[in-house]
Each structure stands twice: as C-alpha cells, then as structure tokens.
C-alpha cells in the first residue's frame, strides 16, 4: 500500500507544477477587485458631480465673499453668499447633538461592555440597533410635533421658535447615540482582558477599572466613534429640515430657527433655483464644502483608529 502511495506521488521533476490551469482564480480576483472599485467610482462620481458647478460658482462669486461675509441668502434678491451662518448653524446643531450623544452613548457603551451580563447585552444591543435604524423623517416628525411643543410647555422662558436648533440638535443627538455607543463598545471590547484583570488584581473597583483603564485604553477608538458620529450629525438633513428650519440668519441662540448646510441643500435642491443660475450652483458649492468637511473629519478618524490598532498589535 505504501508502494502505491509512492506512485501516487511520482518524484519526477515538475510534479509540483500546476496540474490543471486555474484561470478561474484570476478571474475571481478581478471580479472582486472590480466590486471594491465601485466605491472608488462612487467617490469619483461625487467629486465629478460636485466639481464643475462648484468651480463655476467660485468663478462667479469668489472665495472672498463665500468665506469672508456673514450674510447668507443665495435665493434672495439681491443674493448674499456669506456661508458662515449655515456653517455656524451646522456646527451648533452638531454641538448640541454631541453634547447629548457623547455622554449618553459613552455611558451606554461602558454599561454594555463592562457591566451588562451577556444576556442583558443580547437584549439591549438590538434595541440600540433599532434606534439606529429609525428613519430620520420620523425623528424630524417627532421633534417637530412632540419635543418642541413639550419643551415650549415645560420651559416657556427659553422662547423656543416653532422650529429651533435645540429640538433638532437633541434629536440628531438621539439619532447618533447608537453610533457612539456601538463603536465605542467595540473598541472597549477590544481592550485586552488582561488589562482589566491587572486592574482588579490591584484592588481596583469596577468603576475605577472602567473609567481609568478601559476608557483610556479604548480612547482612540472612542474618538473615532465620536468623529464618525459628528460627521453623521453634520450631514443630517431630514431632522434639521423638518425641525430646525431654513432661516438663514447669523445666530447662536439655539432657541432660534436656523438653516444648516444640509438643510440648505435640501431646500434649494428641491426648489425654485433654475439650472445654471448662480443660486443653483450654490447647492454644489455647499455640497462640496460639506463633503470636504466630512472627508477631513473621517481622515482624522481613520488616523485615530490606526493609532489605536498599533497599541495592541
């Protein structure tokens, strides 16, 4: 039987050569690469769709006015192209959202990662996933018809407008809680158990271990989660369009109505501006700005994650 075996594997030179051609393997790899390239194509598509009108816009309006003035109203007569009011509104709503989402999301993440039993986690994580899936129109509807009236009743001194940055920001915050919570939880779960054991073995309590060992060790992952959440908040459209309003004034008071960049795009993009007009091109200029902002934030986040991977690998 062993002799048979030998003949089954002859020692002739070239016996290790490919016994049958495998073009399929190569074809598969090409197909897979093409699939991966779709995403690159998407980015190219976005850039192409944005670039030409944006360039035309800046040749008509000029960077100076766009970034140098604080009056916004591309669809008014005379038009005004100072982009700061909508940037400020975007940042303000994002800030409110972050103020809501970071403590709640982070605390939820610590709870899920460090305190919850597997059983509890198995129930709570899907609930957070549902929250993450709630359509943004629904959040907008809820903010406009429930949260704003409630806030107006409970805190009349705030002088909330019917549409306001506060409710919109609050609900954007609720929308991004699951992002902060689940990504932070992932990075806390990635903290080697050895670190926790090391801390407990020194007589540290669970709270101290969570706060002083786990959170710092997962820090860059947490920051990456927050950055992703920030870019989702900054780009959120429906909630701010429904509950935040379109008023393009330069204001910091969150009780006021204000238009964010995304809200402006939604409003102008589905509206009156006629093709080729400067007002129309403004949509693309603002879109480009939003794209560049999220790109920059995401690049930052990718770097953070990179750094965090290095610590344990």
């Amino acid at each position, binding site marked *: 039987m062993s002799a048979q075996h030998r003949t089954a594997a002859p020692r002739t030179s070239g016996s290790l050569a490919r016994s049958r051609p495998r073009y399929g393997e190569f074809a598969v790899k090409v197909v897979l690469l093409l699939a991966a390239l779709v995403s690159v194509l998407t980015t190219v598509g976005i850039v192409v769709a944005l670039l030409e009108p944006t360039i035309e816009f800046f040749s008509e309006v000029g960077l100076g006015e766009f970034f140098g003035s604080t009056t916004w109203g591309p669809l008014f007569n005379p038009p005004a192209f100072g982009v700061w009011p909508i940037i400020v509104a975007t940042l303000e709503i994002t800030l409110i959202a972050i103020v809501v989402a970071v403590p709640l999301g982070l605390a939820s993440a610590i709870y899920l990662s460090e305190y919850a039993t597997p059983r509890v986690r198995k129930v709570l994580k899907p609930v957070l996933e549902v929250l993450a899936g709630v359509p943004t129109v629904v959040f907008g509807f809820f903010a406009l018809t429930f949260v704003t009236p409630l806030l107006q009743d409970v805190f009349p001194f705030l002088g909330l407008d019917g549409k306001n940055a506060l409710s919109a920001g609050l609900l954007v915050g609720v929308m991004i809680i699951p992002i902060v919570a689940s990504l932070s939880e992932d990075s806390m779960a990635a903290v080697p158990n050895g670190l926790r054991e090391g801390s407990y073995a020194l007589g540290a309590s669970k709270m101290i271990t969570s706060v002083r060992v786990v959170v710092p060790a997962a820090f860059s992952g947490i920051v990456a989660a927050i950055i992703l959440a920030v870019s989702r908040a900054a780009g959120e459209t429906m909630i701010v369009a429904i509950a935040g309003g379109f008023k393009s004034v330069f204001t910091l008071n969150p009780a006021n109505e204000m238009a964010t960049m995304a809200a402006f795009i939604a409003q102008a993009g589905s509206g009156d501006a*006629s093709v080729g007009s400067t007002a129309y091109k403004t949509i693309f200029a603002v879109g480009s700005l939003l794209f560049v902002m999220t790109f920059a934030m995401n690049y930052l986040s990718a770097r953070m994650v990179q750094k965090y991977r290095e610590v344990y690998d």
Partner: protein
Amino acid sequence: GGDAKPTSEGTSAAAAPGESQGAALSGEVKTDGSSTVAPLTQAASELFGEEQPQVKVPVGSSGTGGGFEKFCNGETDISNASRPIKDEEKAACEAKGIKFAELTVATDALTVVVSKENDWATCLTTDQLKKMWEPAAEGKVKTWKDVDPKFPAEELKLYGPGTDSGTFDYFTDEINGEEGASRKDYSPSENDNDIVTGVSGAKGGLGYFGFTYFEENADKLKAIEIDSGSGCVAPSVEAAQGGKYTPLARPLFVYPSAAAVKRPEVAAFLDYYVANIGTIAKDAKFIPLNPEQEAKLKSDLESLKSQG
C-alpha cells in the same frame, strides 16, 4: 410604465390612438413643479383615474423652479407653476426645442394672517406690508410699533414660504417691487403648517400663504384685509374671482409641453382637467376660475393641440 427607455417619448399609448372618451388608454403623464399647484393636479389625477385607470399621473412637487428645470430638460410632460415662467427658463426650454402653452387653471388669494390674539390689526396697506418685508427692514423693523406707531410694541415675528417657492416670488414681486427681494430674517418654510403653528403661537406673528391654508385653519388664525389704495378687502373666493383682491390674488398655471400633448393619454388628461376644472378647484380647495377665465383656458388648450 414598464418601457425600457425612461424618457417621456417612450411612454406612448398601447391602446388605440383614438381620442374618444370611451377608449381605454394607458401610459404615463409625468407632472412636476409647484407644490402649491400640486394638489390641483393631484385632484385632477385622482378624478381622471376613475375614468382612465390605466393612465398614470404621478405628481411631483419640486417647486415651480425645480419643475421647470425638469420640464425644459424634457423630463416631464406637464409643469405646475405658481408664477409665470421666467425668461431664463424659457430660454432653457427653447434650447431643448420644447414648446409649451401657459394654462391658467385656478386662482389663489395669498392670505396674510396674524394670531387670533392680535387685536390691533385688521387691515394693512401694501405699504405697511412692504415696510415689514422689504430687505431694508432686516434687523430694523422688529416690532409692530416700527411699522406703525399706532400699533403696540409687540415683537414682530414673520413667517412665510421658502425662498424657493413661487409664492415667495409672487409676494416679493407684488409687495416689495422686485422678485426675491425680501428681508432674510423671517422663518421660511416649505411646510405651510409651520406658518400656521408659528403665527398662531406668537401674539405678534404674521405670515402669508395660500388661501386654502387659511380656510383649513380659520379657527386658529385671523386673515388681514389688504388695502392697495382702494380700500380694505378681505380675502375671499368672490373677491379673488372678481379681481377685487389685489395685488395678492394670483393665477396658478400648468404648462403642458406641445410634444406631449400629441400623446393621447396626455391629451385626454388635459381635456379632462380643463373640462372639470370647477370640480377640481373645489376638491383641491382653490378658488375656481370665473367664466371668462374658464373660456380662455379652453381656447388656450385647443390652440396648443392644434399647434404644429
């Protein structure tokens, strides 16, 4: 519907090309444009659907400008508009060889509303409105007192349609003298319900929108009479129809493309629209045309159909 080519030319009728009312037609009549006019075309579409269930009439509401953009790109058959087509838009249509007609299908009475709690204003002159709304008022006219010393110093909170709407264009044109010229620090909204909520919730609130919205919310709001030099006139069906509610009574339009009208389903839809315009306007809660306007509508459509 299910053709391979998604352009309007492709959606030809599968049924007999006859225009007789009885023959079952099919196909799609694409409409888009003004969100103000949309309910009118939607009502027409609903009623027409009972007659010709195989003809589909989707109604978009991209706004008057958005509608013309698609219309002049050959992407829709009929465009709804709450203001007449602009010169640039005409040029865009011409460039694509798209011919069209302007059909006036109903009348709207832009209604200026204030809160029920407002006990000082029942009638405003167009000048007073201008004083409130002109670009120069931005940041300066903050209370009612700034408009007229007789009014109390109640904070003036302004609400209106978004800058992208035909309603805004019309109002700014008529009141401020130039289309789009407006103070920017008012609360604009695509959703007229927001104006209802906003104005009814603020003692010093003021806003404007289509007559329908006022009628639906007459319990919450108070309509202001308008004085354009010949005395105060309250918005009403009769005043608008009779041409007395100036300058805020405005016509609403649909723009069918000449090429599309060649298609039997489009022609049938328009025929139906025009023939039943009274019912449609009532269903959509607009002010119906007066008899002269109705006659003009019919002849306008006929001349479009007989065009080239």
